[in-house]
């Protein structure tokens, strides 16, 4: 199994708690004090009012300071969030191992999980086709940003990363979709290093979509953010930086959603069982579970029942990061992994092996198994 293990050698995280793992760990340790979100939504589009929901924008984002003013207005908020997260991850890597040279950049790429890309950009672009004098009088420089692969493509340009570059869509599972794609590309030798994760941007359009569907659990905020993890094949750099963790497995399954929520839950339980077996980890050795659907009406209970099916009643403690992040949809799985790594580093979550789960209303389910780096030397892998 060790041949299929990936090292997480760095990360970049932007969340409602702020930038990086430390503020996220602090906020998770004291969620009551972390409701820093005001009523003002970020970057409010054209005076569009938000629905009466609590929102949690990325704290202290300030894209001009991070990314410079040049060309910023062409970039969607998703572009900016991924760019900033990749920048943070690469800067961390450079501090410990020096900057990537051209050859290394050719073997390094970006893999991003999303839902539909930048909801706001696509909505505004389409609106222009209705309200402009002619339907094609859209802003041409805004066209690339309507595509889902814009954050990955723009970030590759900014950092000169010509290795495998991909974008996956999978709703709440999307972060796992991206990590699994990256895992395959690394193990198949298509790349040596991938920055993989997810993104979700807050907008009036998406907040109204949440409001209209009534899909949020009671009191759950709409959040946003991006997290990317620098993945390499295990032991690829014996003298490199100490990893944050080891990705032991990342599995996805699906069920026809018309079979009902219970069938989706059973599939999740099966998926977790397969992932643990593949990772060589017994259920009783899982120290902590980060549930993906804790912020979703109905699905929260479905996910919990699936976890009980695997772990029995009780089971390992749950780290529900939604109390800090809100519901972050396609960034969720990636941000939840970040939350786990943050708590591990802070010593506020039990070490050992963690499980991150995700459930989508379209019948997609997934999970990943991750081991804290300090525990990695223990035998049994």
């Amino acid at each position, binding site marked *: 199994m060790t041949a299929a293990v990936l090292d997480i050698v760095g990360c970049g995280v932007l969340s409602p708690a702020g930038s990086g793992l430390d503020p996220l760990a602090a906020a998770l340790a004291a969620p009551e004090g972390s409701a820093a979100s005001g009523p003002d939504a970020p970057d409010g589009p054209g005076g569009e009012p938000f*629905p009466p929901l609590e929102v949690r924008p990325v704290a202290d984002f300030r894209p001009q300071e991070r990314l410079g003013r040049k060309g910023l207005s062409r970039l969607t908020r998703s572009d900016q969030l991924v760019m900033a997260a990749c920048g943070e991850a690469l800067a961390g890597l450079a501090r410990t191992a020096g900057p990537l040279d051209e050859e290394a950049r050719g073997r390094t790429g970006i893999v991003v999980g*999303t*839902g*539909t890309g930048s909801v706001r950009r*696509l*909505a505004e*672009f*389409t609106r222009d*086709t209705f309200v402009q004098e002619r*339907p*094609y*009088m*859209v802003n*041409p420089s805004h*066209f*690339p940003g*309507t*595509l889902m*692969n*814009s954050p*990955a*493509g723009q970030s*590759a*340009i900014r*950092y*000169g*990363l*010509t*290795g*495998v*570059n*991909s974008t*996956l*869509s*999978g*709703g709440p*599972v999307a972060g796992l979709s991206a990590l*699994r794609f990256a895992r*395959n*590309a690394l193990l198949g030798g*298509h790349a040596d290093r991938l920055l993989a994760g997810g993104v979700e941007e807050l907008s*009036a*359009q998406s907040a*109204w979509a949440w409001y*209209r569907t*009534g899909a949020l659990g009671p009191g759950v905020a709409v959040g946003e953010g991006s997290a990317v993890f620098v993945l390499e094949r295990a032991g690829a750099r014996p003298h490199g930086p100490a990893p944050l963790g080891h990705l032991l497995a990342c*599995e*996805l399954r*699906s*069920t*026809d*959603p*018309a079979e009902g929520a219970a069938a989706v839950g059973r599939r999740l339980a*099966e998926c977790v069982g397969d992932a643990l077996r593949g990772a060589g980890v017994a259920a009783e050795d899982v120290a902590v579970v980060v549930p993906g659907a804790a912020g979703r009406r109905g699905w929260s209970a479905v996910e919990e029942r699936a976890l009980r099916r695997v772990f029995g009643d009780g089971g390992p403690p749950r780290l529900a990061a939604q109390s800090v992040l809100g519901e972050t949809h396609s960034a969720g799985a990636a941000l939840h992994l970040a939350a786990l790594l943050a708590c591990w580093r802070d010593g506020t979550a039990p070490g050992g092996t963690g499980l991150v789960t995700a459930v*989508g*209303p*379209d*019948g*997609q389910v*997934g999970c990943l198994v991750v081991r804290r780096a300090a525990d990695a030397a223990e035998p049994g892998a």
Partner: protein
Amino acid sequence: MSEPLPRRVVVTGLGAVSSLGIGAEAVAQALRAGRSGIGPIEQFDSAGFERTLAGEVRGFRPEEHLRRIDPRRWGRSAQFAAAAARLAVADSAMDPERLAGSRAGSSFGTTNGESAVLGRLAEQWVEDGLAALDPAAVAQADAGRIAAAANAELGLTGEAQTLGTACAASNYAIGYGYDQVRSGAADIMLCGGADASNRATHAGFHRLGALAEDVPRPFDAHRDGIVTAEGGVALLLEPLEAARERGARIYAEVLGYGMTCDARHMTNPDAASIAECVRRAHRNAGVKPHEVDYVCAHGTGTPANDRTEVAALREVFGDRLPPVSSIKSMLGHTMGAAAGFGALVSCVAIRSGFLPPSATVREVDPELGADLDCVPVTARTERPRVVQNHGFAFGGNNAITVFGEVSP
């Protein structure tokens, strides 16, 4: 599974929903005959556009092709993917029950996701405000539902990966599915792509001046752009050994694939990066340039694409360029499904022995080189043994798949 890994992977089923007909055979015959699927736009109100043609799937009745999922619960792109997947399974003659009980999943590519659904939501915003968004439409909006629909339709329990790498996405999906079967992570994968005709995409290309006046004319001296199009396409991938055991008809073997990212410009293609993608695909597939008998081009018909693509090929092939043709001359640009249609025709070409034409070319662009064989106007009877299939995209996403005849 006791057979050694990695396994050889073959294509044994093809499915398609397109402007040229439903089903792989209809599409392949039309491409061989050089027919055009381009006509007036019906999927959205084209009033006010100066370009009003598209390659749309006319008269598509999803309920005729979908046995399990309720089309009212899924967007048009998801319907295309699910219908193409269902058709590919029928084409493979695999027992659907056996399939559903297998370790099987899907991977589908898309450029614009559920663009028809998103277009309706944008219209609701414009007409009645955000408070009027239809929750049922919101529930269908995520692009990830495209592969999920294929799984739901076929009762597959494995993964459902939706690749959002724009107009190269089907090749990413096929490459990914190939790796899953090859490595033993899955025993069967349905791979392809889907996109729906929509207002935003048409407007975007229109504004860039990238839309052709009538039909796309890849490799023509006076080519003036693409024609937007839609459709769904699926390939059924399984191990060679399993295909032989069940006596399946084998179209072709998936030999490998390669991916690069330009990381230079969001919309302009980059010859050096495409050439590197070709080299990576060759290396992964274990083929040498002189072994490639045909290139199914990205061939959009814009001046920049065709120039860049041929330049990239010359970087790798030198002056021994294999025949290079573009099926977009007939289908238009089906976006995220485009490379999947290329894969489909590559497989049929290997099995049936023909090269599809660049059907609309009138005067081959001399600037592309006098030796460029773009299979002008009519198909050629010739059996390629190794075919490389191109997919390039906005965002600098390049992916190339390589197919070959099955050697004993």
